[in-house]
């Protein structure tokens, strides 16, 4: 699939820009490393041995390809589009995060780095990173907001079992953005031996493009699987968006198929109007944070606002720069789902399909519940089921208890 000259899949430019978004807004200490990383990644991309090692790990360690599953009872229930779930929750470690982590850890090995750091919100990226570090015998330190440590305890325990050190971050709002600040502070201190494994399609160039490339396996498989199942491409794609890596992984291989509708679902928390949400596109504006320009939640003085979402993985006041650009281009339509809508969708999938989704993709499912009935029966809709919900059962139990 070589992109055409007018393709939407050519970005970023050589300086890491998607339109006005992206870039490399980092301290000078990190700049030489980021340039090194960019070089190392460009070399790895050209190296058939790197691709072969990735394919082997994807197949035998992560368990790819993940199934594209026709959700028959959900489809019957919603009486509209034919709904397929891309089962990323069946990957090793329980989410799409392993796709990116395997790529970055192989790259870290090529670069001779022995110490890996990562930030995590829900803990899925932290677990995936701890897993890959255990597999390759690398030291692993995961920064996690103290609030998230509390609400995602099972994942903290998993990371500890895998030999990673989890550092609870007490600064700021004590969630994902603060974990990222602290990881950057670690990186700037330990530049010599440390590789920063960023978990989403954000951060300074080349991270947004690199993470997207590693996650694009989701969309590439979906194309083939849908061709096999239905003899044609899907009509629409739906995915949840925090930083947006699962969404970008699904969307990117389809950006040049203009007839395919693409929906990104942000977390509306208690509702966009309440100000307590994590919807950077719906409620934010362009600014610069964590190495890139993108839509951010902030006040009129450029101070970053705390995000809110029931889902720790979406609880971030920014979004990947390529999503920001695709929004401005009008190629991806951004919607948002509230905490309550996500909880309802979560329960629906449990009872109709016997699948406990993570709260993150429950946001995507919440919009599928709205979108699917508006579509004809031959409309093929793919939802990225980016993670499984085991980690969320206590949060859900708390909320449902409260709703009674």
């Amino acid at each position: 699939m070589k992109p055409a000259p007018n393709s939407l899949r050519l970005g970023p430019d050589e300086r890491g820009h998607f339109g006005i978004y992206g870039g490399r807004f980092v301290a000078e200490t990190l700049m030489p490393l980021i340039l090194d990383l960019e070089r190392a990644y460009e070399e790895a991309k050209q190296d058939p041995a790197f691709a072969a090692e990735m394919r082997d790990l994807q197949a035998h360690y992560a368990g790819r390809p993940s199934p594209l599953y026709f959700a028959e009872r959900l489809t019957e229930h919603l009486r509209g589009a034919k709904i397929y779930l891309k089962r990323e929750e069946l990957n090793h470690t329980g989410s799409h995060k392993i796709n990116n982590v395997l790529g970055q850890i192989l790259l870290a090995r090529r670069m001779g780095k022995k110490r890996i750091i990562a930030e995590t919100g829900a803990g899925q990226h932290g677990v995936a990173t701890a897993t890959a570090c255990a597999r390759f015998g690398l030291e692993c330190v995961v920064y996690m907001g103290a609030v998230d440590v509390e609400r995602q305890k099972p994942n903290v325990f998993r990371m500890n079992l895998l030999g990673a050190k989890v550092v609870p971050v007490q600064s700021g709002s004590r969630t994902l953005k603060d974990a990222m600040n602290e990881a950057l502070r670690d990186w700037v201190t330990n530049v010599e031996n440390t590789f920063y494994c960023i978990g989403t399609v954000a951060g300074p160039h080349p991270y947004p493009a690199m993470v997207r490339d590693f996650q694009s396996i989701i969309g590439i498989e979906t194309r083939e699987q849908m061709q096999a199942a239905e003899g044609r491409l899907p009509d629409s794609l739906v995915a949840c968006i925090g930083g947006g890596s699962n969404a970008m992984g699904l969307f990117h291989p389809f950006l040049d198929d203009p007839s395919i509708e693409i929906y990104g679902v942000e977390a509306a928390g208690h509702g966009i109007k309440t100000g307590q949400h994590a919807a950077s596109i719906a409620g934010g504006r362009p600014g610069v944070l964590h190495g890139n320009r993108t839509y951010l939640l902030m006040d009129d003085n450029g101070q970053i606002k705390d995000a809110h979402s029931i889902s720790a993985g979406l609880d971030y006041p920014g979004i990947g720069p390529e999503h920001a650009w695709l929004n401005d281009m009008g190629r991806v339509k951004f919607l948002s789902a509230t905490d309550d809508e996500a909880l309802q969708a979560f329960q629906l999938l449990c009872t109709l399909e016997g699948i406990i989704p993570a709260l993150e993709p429950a946001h995507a499912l919440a919009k599928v519940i709205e979108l699917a009935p508006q579509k004809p029966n031959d409309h093929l809709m793919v939802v990225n089921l980016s993670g499984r919900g085991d980690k969320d059962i206590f949060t859900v139990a708390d909320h449902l208890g409260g709703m009674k």
Partner: protein
Amino acid sequence: MTARIDARFKALREEGRAGLVTFTTAGDPDYDTSLAVVQALPQAGADLIEIGVPFTDPMADGPAIQAAGQRALKAGQTLKKTLALVESFRKSDAATPIILMGYYNPIYVYGVDRFLRDAKAAGVDGLIVVDLPPEEDEELCLPALKAGLAFIRLATPTTDDKRLPTVLQNTGGFVYYVSITGITGSAIPDTAKVIAAVSRIKHHTKLPIAVGFGVKTAEHARAIAEGADAVVVGSALVEAVRTSLDPQGRATAETIKAVTDLVASLASGVRAARRVAAE
């Protein structure tokens, strides 16, 4: 135009000593106290003044400066008020260079052109923006130079000889050498390594070189001043502010004195340095 900065370093050269650059956070713990602190700095021995622009997410700062920024934001400090603070300072001091140090987002949201106009009018001489490397010069550095403000770049232990020319291009006023790989106020720099790094950078530029990150005491300041043109102290000063506050986090009668006493001590350290041939 970096007239005030150039004049100050020329005067320091004539005196045959290194300068002391102080960093305090605008609005910490409140606007009036931070203005009074800044007004008292030159008398206490500060040769150049850096004023921190508070930001919610200061990625390159350690706990001390993070906390100072949080105190200032809680007290309602904004970029606009920081410019007002500089304007007030300039009414009584036309000579001491003022450098704003912070992160890009508050400036970006304020509007680059409007910010440069207002900063210039307020009497700001230079800018240090931590998250704008040379790769992003079009954002603020080039417009700042055009507006007549110095854009002071950080050079770090990871900035090798190959990269130094990139970092030094478009740098004005002075070069800020970050003495450690790390965040502000963390590790104590190895003086011998720092002095070697300064002399390495001197091969690439005629600009004065200030050294900061991790300098806390008069003795550190003296040791660094033997090889550098100026020594920057920040975390230790904002810690002096913090320890002077009452249990509710309000300024006390001790706050200004706590800062000026430390500045006086640091200044005596800088002035006691036996300068090696730094040229």
